[in-house]
């Protein structure tokens, strides 16, 4: 029940295209859903986060869509750029600072 399942494991998108990464969870006690971006040799960095009282949050080219009834959330990267090539992790938390991470998606944006 503590797991967060992420898909796909890897994704190749053409420059200018839309990248979509999906996550699903079971524990309805989760109340905070962040996405982290990790470049090789670096630690993860917060990209965008959402709470379950809203269905969508947009920051620039990055949007989180949240479906509370389905217990799913997704990251959409519009106008994907080669600089977006990284590994993306979804996560969930029920407070207390403990983040449960998904398995990660390796995104490659081709020029």
């Amino acid at each position, binding site marked *: 029940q503590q797991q967060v399942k*992420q898909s796909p494991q890897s994704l190749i998108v053409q420059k200018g295209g839309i990248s979509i990464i999906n996550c699903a969870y079971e524990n309805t006690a989760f109340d905070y859903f962040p996405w982290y971006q990790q470049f090789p040799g670096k*630690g*993860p960095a*917060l990209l965008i986060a959402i709470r379950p009282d809203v269905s969508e949050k947009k920051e620039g080219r990055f949007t989180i869509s949240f479906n509370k009834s389905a217990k799913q959330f997704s990251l959409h990267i519009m106008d994907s750029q080669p600089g977006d090539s990284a590994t993306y992790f979804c996560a969930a938390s029920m*407070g*207390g*600072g403990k*983040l449960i991470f*998904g398995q*990660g998606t390796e995104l490659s944006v081709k020029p």
Partner: protein
Amino acid sequence: EAGVVQSPRYKIIEKKQPVAFWCNPISGHNTLYWYRQNLGQGPELLIRYENEEAVDDSQLPKDRFSAERLKGVDSTLKIQPAELGDSAVYLCASSLDEVTHDTQYFGPGTRLTVL
């Protein structure tokens, strides 16, 4: 402002040897986390400190792992003795406040290889 600092960045040891990792969090951050990230996986929390108190060490393998955060600032994570399965990246993170979903800022990690 400096981010989370970790050292060493890389460490190669033989099994059964001890190893230690050091972390200096962002100034003013009360909460410090140690995560382990296996290859191709997301980070998994090992231990969380609120100031100098370990408030969640339920995932820390206590038979071989230990950690300390003296004076509520820097922290050290130790493995003794190391096993082959301990090869991973050990990440340190910090946040202002662990109660309100404050952003966790990660360091670059220490990549441990156990031969």
